[in-house]
């Protein structure tokens, strides 16, 4: 049953991860922990304040992700990491499609969970990194009812800015989480097969209001 509990938490948190959504407008990306601190704070504020998000308005959430969060995420790196060695075999067009469908999968699925954000606060753990590091992990946790939910970010320094390229929910790095699933699908049906099955998932989720929760 531990796994069930874990996965439930995963969903609850993914929420806040996405809440970042809304959050990023004034985010300062010059230091990794500052960026996460600001995104986190503004997320909590934004989700609590926005009735549309709480009601599970998926389109609004997706629009916000594109406008606010995506500038701080290297989603190509996240997708390529999940796709693994098959990434360089994909055509640029396939890569674009993979990114788009993967993003939609994550955003749409988690958007239902956004409605659950209520009393949570965010805890920030000390950054263990050298000033010269160009890749760091910023560790946070969501504190509310029940166990605190681990929520860590991998960030890379791109020029003067820091960008998120992977997220860890409850000890699970999302890119790693999908690597076997993607490899399995590509092994069976090729890269186009993976794109298709992701697209099917997304289409199905869009069709059923159940995703709203």
């Amino acid at each position: 049953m531990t796994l069930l509990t874990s996965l439930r938490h995963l969903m609850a948190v993914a929420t806040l991860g996405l809440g970042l959504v809304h959050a990023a407008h004034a985010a300062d990306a010059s230091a990794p922990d500052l960026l996460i601190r600001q995104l986190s704070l503004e997320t909590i504020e934004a989700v609590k304040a926005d009735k549309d998000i709480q009601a599970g308005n998926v389109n609004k959430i997706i629009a916000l992700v594109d406008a606010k969060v995506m500038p701080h995420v290297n989603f190509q790196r996240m997708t390529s990491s999940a796709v693994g060695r098959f990434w360089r075999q994909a055509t640029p067009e396939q890569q674009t499609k993979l990114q788009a469908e993967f993003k939609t999968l994550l955003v749409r699925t988690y958007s239902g969970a956004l409605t659950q954000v209520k009393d949570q606060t965010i805890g920030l753990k000390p950054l263990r990194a050298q000033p010269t590091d160009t890749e760091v992990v910023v560790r946070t946790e969501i504190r509310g009812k029940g166990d605190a939910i681990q929520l860590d970010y991998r960030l890379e320094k791109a020029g003067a800015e820091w960008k998120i390229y992977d997220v860890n929910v409850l000890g699970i790095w999302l890119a790693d989480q999908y690597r076997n699933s993607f490899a399995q699908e590509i092994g069976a049906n090729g890269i186009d097969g993976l794109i298709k099955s992701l697209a099917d998932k997304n289409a199905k989720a869009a069709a059923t209001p159940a995703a709203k929760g």
Partner: protein
Amino acid sequence: MFRWLAIATVALGLSGCQTVQKVGDKLQGAVDKVMGSKGQKLDPWESWNRKVFAFNEKLDETVLKPVATAYSEIVPSPVRTGIDNFFGNIGDAWSAVNLMLQGRFKAGVEQGMRFAVNSTIGLAGVLDIATEAGLEKNSQDFGKTLGKWGMGTGAYVVWPVFGPSSVRDSLALPVDWKASPAVVFDDGKKKVLITALNLVNTRANFLRAGEMLEGIALDKYTFYRDAYLQRRGSFDDDDEIEVLVPGSSASAPAGAASGAGTANAASAPAAAASEPAVTVKKPAEPASAATR
């Protein structure tokens, strides 16, 4: 020898990049078959596990999920929270023991205090007073303790009814059962009832997330397995945690939280400057958040 190589290279070049790629793929595929990817290496009993997984899914679909759904619709929410807290409280005592075994004494004492507070003031655990008082829940079990002692998760195992596990966690399971809520009751019938209630409670908590998982997993078996192994193979720590209170980011010393150098000091005023509207707008919010 070299001539042959040269000829082979030219021949490959002539036959086009696609063929080369195909050959490469085949080689890689063969290597994968022998070596396996990370998840596959940890799942030597995959075909058997998949059968058990399918059985469990069927069982869940026909019995557990309908019962859990009915439970969450019929039983009022405060009662369900009380039941969930009651089970959680017994879990806290076991977490305290495991934290001690892991050598994490401060965290162990904290969970022990949770148990003490909730068992008394919290009416045998029905009310979670400790969380309100700032004692965060930190669940541990004996499988995690074995892991902390240096034991890897071992191969993935799916048990009938009990679901995903690993060799390590299976070894720990009998020990964890000794500390399950059923232990509070000495009557055999009550033990069965309380175990069933615990199961329904856990499943009911998972109803919404379970539906979301359906939409996120390409292959549910693979998804559950990889989540389980990653989750159970990672460990948290006891670092000091700075709680971020909404609306107060202006007052928090940004430089103190960072090892990333002087950039912070320079950017802190900018961060502060962008925040004040929030602080003014919501004076009540930070106070209530801080007590939680």
